[in-house]
């Protein structure tokens, strides 16, 4: 498909009014349509638990759940998700109780620096709910969209397996 090689004219950033349900709470805000869900969470709503590791779709640090499915927040335009149900790491703890997968990450030491961890946990939730967590090998295959440069993979696999057994 051809694309124009001339830069488009530079209009002032437009703004769209968009609403989401984030961790169960309705939020409405006006957005520059260029903003990704990732930047909206981090820079507009101060939900900094979701991380920007590459902004290239190539690391998984920005994984969140949108309408129950794990996706990469950096590859989205937030204005396309008006009305969506969004879950981030901040929403998992309920009344001071960690989610079983969060507990499992601590117990199996599925982390070191912790920077990939939010993405790993959100991805792990997706992995379990998709039914892709029945064996360590299967978990490895379906958790390979989340890079951990610290190399905490064995602990991550153990944590997902453990939580899958318990849920």
């Amino acid at each position, binding site marked *: 498909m051809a694309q124009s090689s*001339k*830069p*488009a004219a530079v209009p002032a950033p437009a703004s769209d009014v968009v609403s989401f349900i984030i961790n169960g709470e309705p939020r409405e805000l006006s957005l520059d349509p260029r903003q990704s869900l990732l930047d909206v969470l981090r820079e507009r709503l101060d939900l900094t638990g979701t991380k920007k590791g590459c902004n290239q779709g190539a690391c998984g640090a920005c994984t969140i759940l949108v309408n129950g499915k794990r996706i*990469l927040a950096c*590859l989205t335009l937030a204005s396309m998700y008006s009305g969506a149900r969004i879950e981030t790491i901040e929403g998992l703890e309920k009344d001071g109780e960690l989610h079983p997968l969060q507990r499992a990450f601590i117990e199996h030491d599925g982390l070191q620096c912790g920077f990939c961890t939010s993405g790993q946990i959100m*991805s792990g939730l*997706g992995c379990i709910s*998709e039914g892709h967590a029945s064996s360590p090998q299967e978990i490895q*295959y379906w958790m*390979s969209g989340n890079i951990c440069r610290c190399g905490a993979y064995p602990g991550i696999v153990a944590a997902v397996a453990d939580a899958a057994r318990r849920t």
Partner: protein
Amino acid sequence: MLPFSLERANSIEAAIAVAASGGRFIAGGTTLVDLMRDEVERPARLIDINSLPLEGIRVEGQELVIGALARMSEVAANADVRRHHPLIAESLIEGASPQIRNLASMGGNLLQRARCPYFRMLDAPCNKRTPNSGCSALHGLNAGSAILGTSDYCVATHPSDVAVALVALEATMRVRGPKSERTFPVEQLFRLPNDTPHLEHTILPSELIMDIRVPIGPRGQNARYLKVRDRASYEFALVSAAVALTQENGLLKHVRIAVGGVGTKPWRLQSCEAALIGKKLDRESIEQAAQLSLRGTRPLEHNHYKVDLLPRTIVRALEMAGGLS
């Protein structure tokens, strides 16, 4: 990223109409947003097509019909797909990552753009991005570049995995434009770079992909996708092969072979197929046939290994499909 306006299309006709006046479709956005961020893509007007009724996956007569907006993950998990065309499912889950596959649509996948690193660098010549600026990969670092279908203007590989499978399965696609609708083989979607590498597809910007149609038949059952890469997952193919075959009385009756990672488009290998018809599926005959894949290859300074790897990949994929190992 350049500013743009975004509108949600409520009907197919409306979407096409906006596209005809310069709008650009966006589905999962995993190609488009990524390249817009690097300002390689500069659409001024985006049409969000995600509310259009192009999602379903179904069997219609002797065809498996996959809506253009079906997500890679949905297609891979779909029971009809797995029953009739496990090859499609296999090629899908070998691509990208689970999170990307939840976003990425089938239509978008076919139209995804080159992963050649210079294509993304606004400060490097690239004929695909900026016509007539030159090709940086030709005499640059080109380990990932294509060896088939290249020209002096462009050597970028086509990165899709599922497109390779669809070409092997002789799938067709249905597209609708402002005036009419047409259906043609997926293989014909892709253009060779020649001296116009910025023109990648045979459809017009105003044509909307409606669905992909894959003939159902016995071939679908003995079909495998083999993707070879240094890292076990989340990496594009160095070389990949999709093969489908049927045998009768111990001899090959139908064979379809397409390869990825080596061509400027998903590459069908009819010469290899022809050499195998009527042969016994054994190591010797497939090795001989696989050598034919090298006809017309044009390796560059850093991608000679693909010449070595291509026939080996085809051999393994055929062995896998034929149950030899």
